């Protein structure tokens, strides 16, 4: 799509719906429609992206100015519309919606605050974190992991502000349940989360390095590797893993079969025979005693089995992974 044609319509709209004298002063050109038109087009081409143009239009005309322009082209808008949505509406009307989606995506922190507040308000009656937007559960979960991990929370004012204690305690139970259903696909909102936004959001987290290994809550520790590098870096890794479904906070290392199945599919490519290398120290439960400790044909068991026999086996580095539905002290993601 050639954005030049819609941009000409945008310029036409400006020429029709605004005070040309002021526009010309702003553009430092003479008050002449042709000159203003030319200057605007030149200015837009200098801005390069539609998003920059959108910002420019917003800054120049403001909500009131854009509302007036929309009125002049018979496009109805509400006085309650935000500046971004007014500009988005305008650009979309002139055919720029395929390039710029119109309304800017809501900021993560703002959406998180909204969702968490909605949840905490409902928690009084529902005790339900589930009301939270599914795509934020991963992030909420991440924060909850830190609560569970015993990180120093004194400085996490912002996050404490967002998530009330009740929500966090509920989150704890969600994490303990290891509910695979809650690990839903990360939405585009989170996909657009930049490093800067994440660091900003997590800036209040305590920078004290966490213990390198804690057998009780091993999952997080595994990811936050020993003598760790910067906290943010670790968080990013955790975040990445959460998004890929590799990491899954679990109660006592208990992992449900779907996580394992996902891991299985990922390990050693598609034709691996579904085996992998188990790290040192992993203690594995098998559903059947006689298959303990060695390669297991487990695909059906992954789907069906629930019962854990209670038989455990200390594995060594290099042992073939036992693909059972439940693994205790699951160190699959580190501690090699």
């Amino acid at each position, binding site marked *: 799509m050639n954005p030049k044609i819609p941009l000409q319509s945008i310029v036409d709209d400006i020429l029709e719906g605004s005070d040309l004298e002021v526009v010309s002063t702003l553009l430092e050109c003479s008050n002449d429609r042709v000159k203003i038109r030319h200057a605007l087009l030149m200015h837009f081409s200098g801005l390069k992206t539609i998003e920059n143009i959108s910002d420019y239009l917003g800054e120049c005309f403001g909500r009131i100015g854009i509302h007036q322009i929309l009125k002049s082209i018979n496009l109805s808008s509400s006085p309650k519309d935000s500046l971004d949505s007014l500009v988005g509406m305008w650009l979309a009307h002139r055919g720029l919606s395929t390039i710029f989606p119109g309304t800017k995506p809501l900021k993560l922190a703002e959406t998180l605050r909204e969702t968490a507040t909605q949840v905490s*308000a409902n928690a009084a009656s*529902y005790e339900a974190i589930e009301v939270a937007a599914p795509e934020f559960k991963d992030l909420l979960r991440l924060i909850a992991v830190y609560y569970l991990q015993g990180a120093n929370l004194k400085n996490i004012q912002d996050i404490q502000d967002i998530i009330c204690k009740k929500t966090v305690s509920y989150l704890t139970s969600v994490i303990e349940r290891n509910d695979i259903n809650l690990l839903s696909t990360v939405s585009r909102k989170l996909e657009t989360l930049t490093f800067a936004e994440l660091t900003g959001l997590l800036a209040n987290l305590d920078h004290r390095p966490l213990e390198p290994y804690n057998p009780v809550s091993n999952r997080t520790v595994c990811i936050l590797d020993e003598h760790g590098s910067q906290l943010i870096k670790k968080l990013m890794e955790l975040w990445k893993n959460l998004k890929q479904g590799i990491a899954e906070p679990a109660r006592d290392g208990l992992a449900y079969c779907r996580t394992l199945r996902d891991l299985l599919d990922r390990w050693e490519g598609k034709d691996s025979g579904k085996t992998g290398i188990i790290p040192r120290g992993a203690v594995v439960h098998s559903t059947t005693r006689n298959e303990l400790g060695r390669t297991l044909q487990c695909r059906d068991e992954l789907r069906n089995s*629930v019962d854990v026999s209670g038989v455990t086996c200390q594995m060594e580095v290099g042992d073939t992974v036992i693909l059972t539905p439940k693994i205790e002290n699951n160190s699959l993601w580190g501690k090699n």
Partner: protein
Amino acid sequence: MDSQRILFTFKSGLFNNTINQLCDNMAIVIEGFHRCGKSTFAEALDIHLKDKNINALLQSAEKWIQGRRCQHISQSEQSFDIDTEIDKAIELMLSKKGCWILDDGEIMLAHTSEKTLLRLGNALQKNQLRLILIRNRFVLDDYGWFHDRELLLNVPLPHLKMQPFDPTTAIEIATGMFHGQNRERRGEWLANWSGGIPGMMYDLHSFTPEWPYPDEITPHISEYAIKICNDLELHRPVRSSLIASLRLKILPPQRMLSHEAKVELGYLSLLGMVTSDRSENSVIFQGNLWNLVADTIASDTTQITEKISDQALNLEILLDNAEFCPYLCEDLDLPIEQGLLAEAFVQSIFCSVYMPRLVIPITDFLAESIGRIGLRLVLTSAGITPSPSSSGKELAGQLISHAGMNL
């Protein structure tokens, strides 16, 4: 009491409005707040529609969640999917051409996949079923994640808002909850303290003192107010500032509020603590209990100084000279009336000094609402020649300095 409440629900104006709207629309949203009787309303609708031989299906999305919890304990391997519940309901309604009444609608909106919401919207567009979505109000009214989710239904969605019972009805219902010779007095007390909110009548019933009572605010009710403050974490900084500003009637219009304050205000509305109407003579806190809670949180009586008022009036005059006042009033959802804009500026400036987390800086507000072009016009009409390269915020800064403000 339940049957009595259902009876009163039938008599309420909202009930008739809902039925009328249902004639013209395939979907309606009934928006309520905590303890306002949403579920009772849903039951009443269900009874009414079934009496009229309409195939109605009443469901609660909260029950789905509870079901999932139970299922999880007993059948941990089985996945649960709210989409499946919705699909089942749609199928059922399609076969019966019925009306689906869904309580706790916000849970459905939060959990359902976009695909299923679109499918539901599609069925509504094709007139294949009707939907009455009963839900809590969203903390953000006109935008936000929940709002976007609801828009996915893509059908006209009239929103009807649940309100507390009017005073006469509230007293009638409350009196019906007591026996004995002083039941009218006690009913009146309960109606006043609950603010006519049905659920609150239940909650406060046991607190109602015997008539004659020496002091309307009993120790029990004071303790209860403190418990509410703690349970709802009303002492949190933004929340308590918000309550203080509402109590002093100095909270500026929504547009001037920070995002955080908007969310928190939505939270207080969702609790049923505050009404959305914040005009001069309106009630701010619903019922005596919420007023007591507000007094418990904030007892500040800081006054706005005359100096701020004069500067704000100057700013209004400068804007009026460039004919921006009507537009700004519209932008702020204020009646076009002299002095109201100045009042909003006063409130904004006052909050920016004493409760800065509640508001966006006034320069940001002016830059975003009027824009660089508008601000240049205002400055020029005030005899100032601004630099073409100045940003919107810089121009707004120039303007408020010219009005005598030194922020």
